[in-house]
């Protein structure tokens, strides 16, 4: 246990100080690349190191990166705002591709999210025994891919990292999954890549249609320079939205999500639900909106309906699920609906809500999946019919799960509430502006979701943890979570609490990138 703590604290401290020295002086060490390289190197190290070190190495890397992430969050100069820690290396001049990393408020949050989930995931997969080495290699690779996607400001690299994350996921699900794992893995992969097919073509179309011959998002965001015609935007915005939406499980392209999470190993579903999925909403805000504001204005009100369907439909379907994990999966789909809905409002409040909700959903979903995984590991079944009264034998996990459920339900004091509240505020706002009265109709329906969520989550809590013990031999054999199992979950819970109790710094952070965006687009008017 103490060795674990050491493995966590030492690298954390190291990176913290390391970054500190950097953040003071000029940008010596390429901070952002470190987020990508550290896990990557960890993967290589695991590859060559003997198997018994695998988990230590990746835990060390995770805490190192976590330290960096926290420090990044602290060091980001809110006064200056804009993109910071930018690294730029020309890559292919003739195609306007260059390796550009940079973070603004929103992506700082996302990077922080990645690091948190990476850390928790590394801990959760502590007791993986099957093909451990490969597991941790892929796990780390996945993270470096996602981190890259959140940091890169060049469409080429954005896409590259984005898909780079998908592949390890395929293997993680396929090898360490449960149930119809190979089917699920295939489905998940094919789905996400199908979504990205539109993205790729869209990016290229943007590149060749715009007048600035570059894939640099910053340059492309200047509509006056790119001169993308309204008709072009109207054709490509929906395609891009759907392309991004697929990874956020946009209805009706969501079915990979339940199956995928249903069979993914715990850490994989944590990372996927927590980080990869959030990429969809993020990329819409980062790419689709600034590049094609007119298309956005034209399409978002209609896409809002899709998002709304996500929220409610998934919530209702979750009511009838019989598998513990599937309920969570559907709830995550529903929450992504909230995110997309927030984006569709095209209002400061709504978009901020979307960002915060993305962050919160990342943390909370990761926490919930971690819990499910741990419980499954002990009860050896996920069928709700067989579970029951688990609080008797695992009170701590039970309590944590109630907390997680409340976070999902959007209880104030936990992160879920802030995002949802802002999203509703935004949606009503854009209805109120009269720009698109469609939102006035959608807003109350959207609020229904908070009731539905409450219903299915409490149903879950009741069926799994409350009531009498259904399966008698559950309580002798089942023990409560060990330190290693509790630690990551508690960690995530604390993060969620931080956001919930004092959201100001987080909201300010996201607003740093949202406010300019809104000025740039100018909302529905």
């Amino acid at each position, binding site marked *: 246990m103490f060795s674990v703590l050491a493995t966590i604290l030492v690298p954390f401290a190291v990176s913290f100080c390391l970054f500190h020295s950097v953040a003071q002086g000029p940008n010596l060490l390429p901070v952002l690349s470190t987020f990508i390289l550290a896990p990557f190197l960890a993967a290589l190290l695991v590859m060559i190191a003997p198997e018994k070190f695998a988990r230590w190495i990746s835990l060390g890397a995770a805490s190192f990166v976590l330290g960096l992430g926290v420090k990044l969050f602290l060091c980001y100069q809110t006064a200056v705002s804009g993109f910071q820690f930018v690294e730029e290396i020309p890559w*292919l001049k003739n195609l306007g591709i260059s390796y550009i990393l940079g973070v603004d408020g929103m992506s700082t949050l996302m990077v922080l999210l990645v690091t948190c989930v990476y850390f928790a995931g590394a801990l959760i997969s502590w007791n993986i025994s099957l093909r451990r080495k490969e597991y941790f290699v892929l796990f780390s690779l996945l993270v470096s891919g996602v981190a890259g996607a959140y940091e890169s400001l060049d469409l080429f690299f954005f896409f590259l990292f984005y898909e780079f994350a998908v592949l390890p996921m395929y293997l993680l699900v396929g090898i360490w999954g449960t149930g119809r794992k190979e089917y699920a893995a295939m489905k998940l992969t094919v789905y996400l890549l199908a979504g990205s*097919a539109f993205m790729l073509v869209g990016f290229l179309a943007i590149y060749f249609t715009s007048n600035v011959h570059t894939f640099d998002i910053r340059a492309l965001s200047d509509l006056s320079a790119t001169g993308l015609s309204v008709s072009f935007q109207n054709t490509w915005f929906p395609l891009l939205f759907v392309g991004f939406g697929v990874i956020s499980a946009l209805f009706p392209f969501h079915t990979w999500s339940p199956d995928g999470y249903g069979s993914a190993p715990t850490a994989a579903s944590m990372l996927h639900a927590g980080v990869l999925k959030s990429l969809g909403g993020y990329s819409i805000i980062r790419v689709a909106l600034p590049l094609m504001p007119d298309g956005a204005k034209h399409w978002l009100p209609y896409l809002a309906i899709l998002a709304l369907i996500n929220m409610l439909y998934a919530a209702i379907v979750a009511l009838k699920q019989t598998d513990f994990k599937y309920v969570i999966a559907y709830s995550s789909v529903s929450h992504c609906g909230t995110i997309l809905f927030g984006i569709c409002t095209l209002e400061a409040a709504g978009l901020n809500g979307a960002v915060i909700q993305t962050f919160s959903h990342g943390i909370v979903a990761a926490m919930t999946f971690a819990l499910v995984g741990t419980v499954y590991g002990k009860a050896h079944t996920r069928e709700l019919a067989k579970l029951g009264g688990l609080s008797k034998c695992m009170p701590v996990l039970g309590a944590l799960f109630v907390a997680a459920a409340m976070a999902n339900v959007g209880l104030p004091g936990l992160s879920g509430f802030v995002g949802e509240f802002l999203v509703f505020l935004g949606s009503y706002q854009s209805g109120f502006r009269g720009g698109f009265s469609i939102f006035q109709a959608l807003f109350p329906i959207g609020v229904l979701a908070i009731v539905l969520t409450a219903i299915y989550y409490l149903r879950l809590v009741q069926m799994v943890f409350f009531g009498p013990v259904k399966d008698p031999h559950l309580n002798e054999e089942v023990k409560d979570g060990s330190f290693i199992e509790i630690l990551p979950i508690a960690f995530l819970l604390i993060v969620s609490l931080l956001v919930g109790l004092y959201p100001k710094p987080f909201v300010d952070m996201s607003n740093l990138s949202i406010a300019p965006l809104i000025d740039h687009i100018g909302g529905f008017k």
Partner: protein
Amino acid sequence: MIQVQAFLPELWLVSAAFLVIIADLFQKSTSSKTVVKGIAVLGVVGALLSLCCISGCGSCPISACCSAVAGNVPTAFGGFLKTDALSVFFKVIILLATLFTLLISFRFFKANPTPYLTEFIAVLLFSAAGASALTSAQEIITLYVALETLTISSYLLASFMKKDKASNEAGMKYLLLGAFSSALLLFGFSYLYGFTGTTVISEIGKVLATQVASPLLTLSVIMIVAGLAFKISLAPFHMWTPDVYEGAPTPVTAFLSVASKTAGFAAFVRLFWVGLSVPALQPTWIALFAVLAVISIILGNLEALPQRNIKRLMAYSSIAQAGYISTGFLAGGQLGLTAVLFYMFVYLFANMGVFLAITIVAAKTGSEQIEDYAGMWKRSPLIGIMLLVGLLSLAGVPPFAGFSGKWYLFGAAISKGYTWIALVGMIFSVVSLYYYLQVARQALISAPKDDSPIELSWVENAVLVICVLFIVTLGFWPTPIMQIAQTAATSLFN
């Protein structure tokens, strides 16, 4: 005057071929023929090195030493052979492919002993010579002769396993269809000659530039397309591909899938972007290629789905690949051709790596069925990784080179306004993912049927590692090869 550098590689290859035959006389037919193998490898490597002595090939991968000799492009036989940067690039691909093929064939014939290894190698070298000559042919007759050198030798190679019924059948099909389509090609040529009165490609371009389209001219162009499309197995002239790929010995399949495809594209590039890129014809054949490309992408990928035999699967995949490459080709211009060259280069490593893996596995298990690849991660991780990386690179998944390749191909297509082709291409590369992943799944996920390890020679290890590294690196950092390919492409237009 004749500059020998213009056909130095071919010289190396041919002489290597003869040397091989001679050397064989002094060897016992039972011996492992190390000398022969050595000579062959040396010949190909020599050919590769000889490229450095070709002046002005800013594009040669080993361009460090090229920069020494700057200036004029070597020509021979009154300009019939001209080895410019473009052809050097193609030659590099072809020669590397030949090198791989040799390596593969060594493993292959260790598993299926034959007394005629020497002959095999000799013929292989001949056809390589043909292919490489084809890339620098500036004139129709030369082009034709080179082409036939390549083709006729590959007929022999395809049907090389005399005892094997499949191999024979493959050979016969390949031969009949090959001959048939080369007849079409020739008929096209004859009319081309009739219309222009010359056989020099650049001349043809000049003459045709002033002419208007006439049905016969179009017909001849179509026939030429048909004849050459056969070589790169572009649908609907692809029908031979699956059968031949499945039947032919694996090294030959590998050779066909890369070397003769490359040669075919080389011929296409010269003939069409120099000779026939005239207002009267260009719209026609570009549209034609657009259709053929899309058909090949769709057919290839769909038909690959139900396949069980991995070589047949690779055949269909190579049809689809031909479709992808054609999108770049028809986009043309500097961008398009750069994309084509780069993609061919990537394709070389991916395909060859996979075929090497296939051979090794087949040599161990004696099976080419996909389900027999179960548990490679346990039996030989490297092979597992090779399959994963190679196939996903073919599918165009980041971070593998195939991805950046597709990025440029489709980029080129879109830049010329063929967005729909790009869309179809992307969607069907997702379809392709399905069957590629089936293999990867068996290799990396499924439990092994028998977990007796598959041991590799150090060479094979090295080569596989190189392939993997190349593919991954080019995915992240395509810059150097891209620049070389770019200079090569530009060399066509001046």
